[in-house]
């Protein structure tokens, strides 16, 4: 039964992906707003219709590839590790995929909003699937409330555009939005950034993300982190680039700064996490930040009059969107296997899993290297493109832009360095050395389809790292749709072709040649190691300074590992340390203090400082409003009458709607 449901999901994803590739390669003319028969309402604002233009098709492809691999992995995952209401989970999973697809191909404002809301609601039910845990219930509530705040902003942005241009068709809005006043455009931009930024997990609107993603079953986490948050990126690109056709520099700088903040805050909090899935969730915040940096840079460069450089930055953003969808899905599936087999997500209780689940360990390691932006994996390629678009600001002749971009490049480099730090910790503590608990020592090998799903994704991470021209070719039509130009020649489908560089710089990067050099070097070492008499190989205990039996308690812990970073950024983390001390009898020396218990906790400071006032404000206003609720029926009738009178007066004096 599960096999059939998820198999169907996989088949659906593959079909959608094929259709997307056809549109991206220009094999079919993208249908402009095919209306759904019988569902076209009388008013243009309420019409339903589908369209798949190149931008839609790119996100359909992102969804389809990760969706297919996650569906494959879900067969084994749900069968083995989910113990309640598997059928409901499977049905909701498919519904979730459908709502994601609808968001991508919605051709009218109304359908987009319906699909958007459906996506939020279905994913809410998936987040609270394990509703016996209070954590999941509370995470679900946080998610639901913040998502609806964001949905309100999305509503304002899209309905605002729709009313201002007098049409509900997205394609018609795009042609009518050119004549809007700057105030309307700025208003729409701010609303879109808040609404879509929240869904994407942009700092400081990200607080729902590290709560909701870990609480869901891991295949759902993979879909949420890998694909759903990309819908925020899709919405932002749709509104800013396709509907409004780009904007002034300050839009770009705003997105760039929020992106940089997201990247840095995301990775720093990821380092402080000991819960494997929370750690991955914070890395989603980080990667969304990187994508946003690309989008922001492209808006700035376009506004300065450099469409070719804007295309480079946008290519970095699009590629990173796809890359992140691949490796984050992979990492969440791997974390799901580890957590499912051991019953814990706590890094301090894992360890040694490389021997219990070698396939998952290998694919998780490849995913970790990809997300840490190491060559020859796909994450490095998109970050290289982004570094390059930031560097290319030197040719704009605007010192402010050049300095800001150089600073952004430093932030990006710090982020990727810290990501590598974090993933050495995550993989090393969870998968290497001795198991830190009984559960980790006796973990069962995960089901084959789960390993196969991660294997497919790991293979794609490597493929797009060695031959990124494949992805760049597919992104070429969306790029043309948005910034009016693509990356130009050099994007042929050759395996070792160089990445294109704008004509103003002469830098090049041939990922295929780098991969070839790496391969040749390893082969060379192998040949060298054949020469001479091969020395003996012995297996002994690890060096433990002479203590006879090293145990798992002597291993470095996740907390100890991340201490170097949490310490230099302690102003930022404000960790709560809890040390219980016992001083040795008859002495006051600190040296002889025995630390009995040490616990450290780092809470997201944005949660209390930003959201508590909002929550308190709501509660206060609710209390005040409740004074109106007298419970007497004539009072309510009076309210209604008063409202009616006020609305009529508003209509009379503010202006009557034109017929």
């Amino acid at each position, binding site marked *: 039964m599960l096999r059939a449901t998820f198999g169907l999901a996989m088949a659906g994803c593959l079909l959608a992906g094929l259709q997307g590739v056809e549109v991206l390669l220009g094999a079919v003319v993208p249908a402009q707003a095919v209306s759904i028969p019988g569902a076209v309402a009388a008013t243009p604002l309420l019409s339903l219709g589908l369209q798949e233009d190149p931008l839609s098709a790119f996100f359909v492809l992102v969804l389809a590839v990760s969706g297919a691999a996650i569906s494959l992995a879900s067969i084994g995952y749900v069968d083995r590790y989910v113990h309640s209401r598997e059928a409901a989970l499977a049905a909701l999973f498919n519904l979730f995929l459908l709502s994601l697809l609808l968001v991508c191909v919605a051709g009218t404002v109304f359908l987009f909003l319906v699909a958007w809301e459906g996506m939020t609601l279905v994913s809410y039910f998936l987040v609270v699937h394990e509703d016996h845990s209070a954590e999941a219930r509370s995470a679900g509530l946080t998610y639901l409330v913040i998502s609806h705040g964001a949905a309100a902003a999305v509503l304002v942005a899209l309905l605002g555009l729709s009313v201002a241009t007098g049409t509900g068709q997205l394609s018609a809005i795009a042609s009518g939005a050119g004549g809007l006043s700057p105030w309307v455009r700025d208003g729409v931009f701010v609303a879109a950034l808040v609404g879509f930024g929240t869904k994407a997990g942009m700092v400081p609107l990200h607080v729902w993300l590290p709560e909701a993603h870990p609480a869901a079953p891991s295949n759902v986490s993979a879909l949420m982190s890998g694909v759903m948050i990309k819908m925020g990126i899709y919405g932002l690109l749709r509104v800013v680039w396709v509907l409004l056709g780009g904007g002034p520099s300050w839009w770009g700088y705003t997105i760039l700064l929020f992106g940089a903040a997201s990247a840095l805050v995301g990775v720093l909090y990821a380092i402080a996490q000991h819960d494997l899935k929370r750690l991955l969730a914070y890395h989603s915040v980080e990667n969304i930040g990187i994508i946003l940096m690309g989008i922001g840079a492209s808006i700035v460069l376009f506004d300065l009059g450099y469409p070719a450089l804007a295309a480079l930055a946008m290519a970095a953003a699009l590629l990173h969107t796809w890359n992140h969808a691949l490796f984050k899905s992979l990492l969440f599936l791997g974390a799901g296997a580890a957590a499912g087999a051991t019953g814990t997500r706590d890094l301090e209780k894992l360890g040694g899993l490389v*021997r219990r689940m070698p396939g998952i360990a290998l694919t998780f390691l490849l995913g970790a290297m990809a997300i840490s932006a190491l060559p020859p994996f796909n994450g490095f390629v998109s970050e290289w493109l982004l570094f390059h678009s930031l560097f290319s600001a030197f040719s704009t002749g605007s010192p402010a832009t050049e*300095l800001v971009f150089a600073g952004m490049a430093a932030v990006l480099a710090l982020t990727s360095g810290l990501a590598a730090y974090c993933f050495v910790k995550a993989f090393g503590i969870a998968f290497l050395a001795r198991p830190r608990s009984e559960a980790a020592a006796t973990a069962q090998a995960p089901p084959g389809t789960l390993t196969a799903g991660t294997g497919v994704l790991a293979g794609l991470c490597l493929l797009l790292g060695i031959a990124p021209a494949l992805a760049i070719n597919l992104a070429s039509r969306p790029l043309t749709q948005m910034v009016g130009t693509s990356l130009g020649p050099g994007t042929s489908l050759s395996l070792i072709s160089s990445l294109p560089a704008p004509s103003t710089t002469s830098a090049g990067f041939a990922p295929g040649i780098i991969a070839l050099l790496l391969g040749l070097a390893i082969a060379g070492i192998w040949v060298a190691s054949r020469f001479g008499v091969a020395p003996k190989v012995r*297996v002994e205990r*690890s060096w433990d300074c002479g203590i006879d039996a090293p145990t798992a308690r002597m291993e470095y812990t996740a907390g100890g590992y991340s201490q170097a970073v949490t310490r230099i950024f302690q102003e930022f983390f404000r960790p709560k340390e809890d040390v219980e001390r016992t001083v040795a009898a008859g002495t006051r020396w600190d040296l002889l203090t025995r630390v009995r218990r040490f616990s450290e906790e780092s809470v997201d400071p944005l949660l209390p400082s930003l959201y508590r006032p909002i929550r308190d404000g709501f509660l206060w206003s609710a209390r005040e409003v409740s004074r109106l609720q007298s419970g007497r029926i004539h009072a309510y009738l009076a309210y209604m009458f008063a409202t009616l009178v006020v609305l009529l007066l508003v209509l009379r004096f503010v202006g009557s709607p034109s017929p």
Partner: protein
Amino acid sequence: MTSSLEAIALLAVEYLLVLGLAPILLGIIRRVKARSQRREGPSLLQPYRDLAKLWRKESVYSDTSSWVTRAAPWVSFAALLAAIPLVPWFVLPTPFSGAGDLIVLVGLLALSRFVIALAALDAGSTFGGMGSSREMWMGSLSEPIFLLVIFAFGAPAGSTQAGTIAAHGVAAGWGYVSAPLLLAVVAYVGLLLVETGRLPVDNPSTHLELTMVHEAMVLEYSGRDLALIEWGQGVKLAVLTGLLIALAVPWGISSSLGIAVIALALALLVAKLAGASALIGGLESRIAKWRLFRVADLTTFAAVLALGAIAFHYLIAAGA
């Protein structure tokens, strides 16, 4: 333009040169340090003897370790080997210069560090974890400086390709020397000390538990794996020093393929590398090891210098 056959021949010379010279650079540094301490010091060739000895010795692996421990030295060394063609050594244009720019070089160094840091956790000993955490921490602090330094060197030449920057320097002659360049060079030297684990950041000759960083990471390695790691340290030093030479004092790199010119360029390169190693050794003799968290001060200082270099460059460019 060089033909592909010539390019392959030049590449082979580069590999022979860097792989062959890497140990002696370590030897020079040790010798200079020994002499400044009024010791005779080991022979310059001692690192070669050490490598040959390790190559013949048996390998001992921890019983808790996995394939990660076995694969890491190979991948780490391979990443350093892949970085060699990205540096302009003695001829311009660099053979295979399209393979990658300095950002790719940063990526390859990160790959080399990443796998060894993972292997350090594999044996489950406290030393490994401590070294791994410290090394990755320093690496994450040095990466932004590397990028800023690349921007600082690259902005005047309009490229992140080391060969193009060096060619720009050779063409500009004395005009290449400027305040931004000097700032960038100082920032790069700070970066070099962090990346190669020299004093005051890390002491490569210590085996004291609390102070070692790199040595703690590779404590479990022996035999051929250790030989690869130590040789790799030499190659990394050679690559980063060679890059400093190409970016800061590029004069002398040959622009044509005549035998005499190439021979002269090679001789100059060897002299520059030896001189740079002696300078590192001299610098090391004069600084004590800093406590670990002061490394963040060093990296912040270098970052400010590099940003200053970029700002100066743009201000000068805007004023001109």
